[in-house]
């Protein structure tokens, strides 16, 4: 049942950008971008995307995000940006998910700066078009 739900969910992705296409392998529930596995929590990721459309999602790998209390500022900093629709923090995988409006030109330096303002380091990121 979960697999069917996820399969259904995955077809809602719009493959609008060839650099950021999402390929879903239904047999093992992994998401690939350009052949590289996105290490995201499937359930969490699905919940995050729920209700989002015409959006871009930045999945940011962050170093030093070891506790909920220390990561609070990340969410507070990003939600001040009017182009940000939603923010989620995945402590287990050290990732921050940021949903931006389609019009936003996502700049990794800006993301790095905001993460650093909270005292952590953004290492790299991937953008998905939803």
């Amino acid at each position, binding site marked *: 049942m979960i697999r069917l739900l996820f399969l259904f969910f995955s077809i809602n992705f719009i493959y609008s950008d060839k650099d950021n296409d999402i390929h879903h392998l239904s047999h093992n529930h992994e998401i690939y971008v350009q052949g590289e596995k996105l290490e995201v929590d499937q359930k*969490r990721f699905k919940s995050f995307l729920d209700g989002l459309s015409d959006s871009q999602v930045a999945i940011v*790998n962050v*170093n*030093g995000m*070891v*506790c*909920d*209390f*220390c*990561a*609070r*500022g*990340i969410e*507070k*900093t990003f939600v001040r940006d009017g182009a940000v629709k939603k923010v*989620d*923090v*995945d*402590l*287990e995988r*050290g990732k921050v998910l940021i949903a931006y409006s389609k019009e936003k030109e996502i700049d990794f330096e800006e993301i790095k700066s905001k993460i*650093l*303002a*909270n*005292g*952590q*380091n953004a290492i790299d990121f991937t953008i998905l078009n939803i």
Partner: protein
Amino acid sequence: MGILSKIFILLFFYNFIEARPISYSGGHTLMHFNDSMKESIYYHFSPTYKYSIGLETLNNKEFGKHESNIRFTYLINRQNTKNSQRNLYFQSAVSANDNNYIYGIHGDWETRRYFVGFDYKEVKNIIDYSDKYVQIGMAPYLGEYDDLHTWLMIKTKKNSINNKQITYPVIKFFKGSALLELGYHKKTDWDVHLMYRF
């Protein structure tokens, strides 16, 4: 109870309020600490994640004395890795009432599961003394973002007033922007520390 014992017990839990001495850039932190000996309120603001400035007002219940301190904390060094964070802070306080002051260093290393911290201070007060502690902790479970987080800790502490080492348990709860910390020692009964960030 002699004055040295009273001062010792007062100092015994002083470092409770040292947890998370700097917030995120633009972050405000309000702390309240209460035990049988004192009640304090400490507010600090972090213009950047590198330092915080704050004001602490303290009611010494035992002596019926009010004190105020201006406090400054600076992040000397931080190392972030995928699974850990290590910090070294300079901390200081200047009394608003007299010429007393405090300075020292505080360090910690933590993962989502383990915590190790230390603290060393030199205090200029009625009696000059040094104060140090080591704290270790473990999270019994790994909560996700927005969950209730729990830490079980042991703190061992010593100061130069009586050179006796005391070890006691601490339990911490985090939920969202709030923290509750409880400690117990047979001499001082329960201690409560509340913190909120905004």
